[in-house]
């Protein structure tokens, strides 16, 4: 089928099918007895959404879990062998260690920096301009970020910004992405560059939500700025910080593009997601790749649960 026909079909036929589905179920529901109809209507309306989530989210998750206990060709059941492999190899354990570093360092730096910037820009006239500049890297794809920062770290001082600075200060050029453990932090720095803008914008919005009367009252009562921050701003901002932190933690656990582009895991900078990619596409080991995916999933679930719990508590307060 020519692509244009496919496009026309998608644009016209898909909405048509959906409208037809809605008309059909409404026709059925209105003909049903009064007591039954309203009860099943929501389920019929929800069905397409459930179907999509089931096919594209729940089914793949379960299939991945099943795949992770089978061998390379997916024929023989191997039990926990793929997991034993993951926890028994130097390179995968290095990846695991680096992800822990990513989670701790990236989250701490991004939330801290985001908070500081949000508070500072709150007090200047050119706030929106400053925020726009810090937010800009968010609009750049992670792969492009990796390419840009490779140039930043380039060995030749005429090209690499970092080595341009070290050269100007009279030091030898450094290989930023080669020496362990510095390279992991240099990679995390690119993550900071990408994510700080996001943290700042959300925290800044949270900051604006704190009523000025509260802050004024505290100041009138004689609290200094630090006390105001610790006693009022921080507690009121806590839910927002929690949301940001969970988002960044998940970002850190999933991190792939930057590492793939900049070091590809060489020199001890490997991360779990890059290992998963290699096992699947380079080494054609879908069983092992699935096991890594499940481990990654297992690491993210508690963070998600925490987030949901927090969300529920907040809803309950309202």
């Amino acid at each position, binding site marked *: 089928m020519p692509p244009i026909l496919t496009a026309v079909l998608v644009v016209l036929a898909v909405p048509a099918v959906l409208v037809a589905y*809605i008309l059909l179920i409404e026709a059925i529901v209105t003909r049903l007895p009064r007591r039954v109809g309203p009860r099943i209507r929501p389920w019929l309306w929800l069905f397409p*959404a459930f179907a999509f989530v089931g*096919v594209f989210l729940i089914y793949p998750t379960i299939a991945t879990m099943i795949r992770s206990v089978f061998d390379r060709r997916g024929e023989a059941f191997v039990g926990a062998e793929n997991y034993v492999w993951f926890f028994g190899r130097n*390179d995968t354990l290095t990846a695991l260690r680096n992800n822990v570093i990513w989670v701790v360092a990236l989250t701490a730096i991004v939330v801290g920096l985001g908070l500081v910037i949000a508070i500072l820009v709150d007090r200047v006239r050119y706030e929106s301009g400053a925020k726009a500049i810090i937010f800009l890297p968010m609009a750049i794809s992670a792969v492009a970020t990796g390419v840009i920062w490779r140039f930043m770290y380039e060995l030749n001082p005429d090209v690499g910004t970092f080595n341009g600075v070290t050269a100007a200060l009279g030091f030898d050029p450094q290989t930023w992405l080669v020496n362990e453990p510095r390279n992991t932090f240099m990679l995390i720095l690119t993550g900071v560059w990408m994510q700080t803008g996001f943290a700042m914008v959300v925290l800044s919005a949270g900051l604006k939500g704190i009523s000025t009367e509260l802050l004024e009252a505290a100041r009138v009562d004689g609290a200094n700025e630090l006390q105001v921050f610790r006693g009022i701003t921080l507690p009121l901002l806590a839910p927002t910080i929690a949301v940001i932190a969970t988002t960044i933690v998940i970002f850190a656990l999933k991190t792939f593009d930057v590492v793939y582009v900049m070091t590809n895991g060489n020199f001890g900078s490997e991360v779990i997601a890059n290992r998963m990619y290699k096992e699947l596409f380079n080494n054609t080991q879908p069983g092992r790749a699935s096991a890594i995916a499940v481990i990654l999933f297992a690491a993210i679930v508690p963070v998600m649960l925490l987030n949901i719990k927090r969300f529920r508590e907040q809803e309950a307060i309202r």
Partner: protein
Amino acid sequence: MSRTLRVLAAMLTAIFAFAACSSGGTPAPSASRPTATGGPSASPSESSGASASPDASGSGAAPSLGGSVTVVGSWSGSEQESFLAMVEPWEEQTGTSVEYSGSRDLAAQLTAGIASGNLPDVAGLPGPGLMREWYDSGALKALDFVDFAKYESETPPGFAASGKASDDKLIGIFTKAAVKGLIFYNVAGYDGTEPESWDALNGLDPAPAEALWCIGFESGAASGWPGTDWIEDIVLRQSGPDVYDAWVGGEQKWTSPEIKQAFETLGDALDKAHGGSDFVVTTAFGAAANPMFTDPQGCKFHHQASFITDFFKNEGGAADGDFDFFVMPDINPEFAGAVTTAGDLFGMFNDTEQARSLIQYLLTAEAQQIWVERGGFISMNRNVPAEAYPDETSRRSAELLAAATAAKFDGSDLMPNAMNEAFFKAIMEFSQNQDNLDSILADLDTTQADAYSQ
């Protein structure tokens, strides 16, 4: 109003979900690395039209078959034209048309093709590793109809066998070759005397250059591969073809004295490299030789396969005639004359009369000579006359290949993918810190034990 809203919301959800689903069908990205074989080809020189059409009667192709053969290869542009010119006499003779399409990522396209059953009759293969995997899974067909003894006698020793599967059946054939392990130099800084031995070469005074070697191993996600070529060249010359085969086949441990010695030999060269380990691990392989063409010269020699001259011209600002090469000298005189090579493999996915005939034809010297004369092609077939080569580099490479006592296929390409990838990584880590050699080799042993048993 809320009712309309709800309808709208439901529709939008469905559309987005549908869009998400339809984009799921795009082929998965596959890691690719520049194979040293498929390096940029020399531009085709003016082909002498008179000798371009060989006497096809001796090619052994069956007359008038009709129909067509679908072929997928990695060649595009001028290489594609040369391939089509190469098969033209066969098309005329058999009345069969060749439907060629080029692909930049053969591995991804053929993997998808095997899954969907939509395969070309004849295809270029990305490497021996995947070739064997595809044969084992039943997708690739055995080439029993090829007269193996004749094919083997026409190609450099030991080479034809690289196209065999584990059950000793021929499944891939070589037509186009690249010679590896060449030592390039700037004619302004070296008189071209071929050193008698590796030790003599590595012991040369770098003057007038600052350093003896220009080495750069960076290549994006495939960083390290130029170093694997170094190790392969060293193992073959230092410990011989038997150790080489055992090592590539997973029977020789990385921690064995032979392989460790090869790493140490590379380490000696790395110690004499321009810019030290920092330069080696961060410089792209294509730009590695740039200091060879600066004034004053940064280095004297550069080790690479025959394709690199294009980078000298485009990256290093060198002109034809500024550089020349000799073959990496022997290390152990017992194994003199061994070279490492790479080549483009062909295999058959659909066993048809036409496909068989085409494979037979591609193996002939007559067919390969057509491309040789158009330039950018080093023939595997020894019967292609040296005069057919239009330029000095390819003519000398071909002579080298023909005279080789042992021509071995790029070892890392023959290893399982997981081994190959660990090898790349090990090269980078060794180049950065040679003190870790023992732990690096021990890790490679772990991967070896795992990768070959899968």
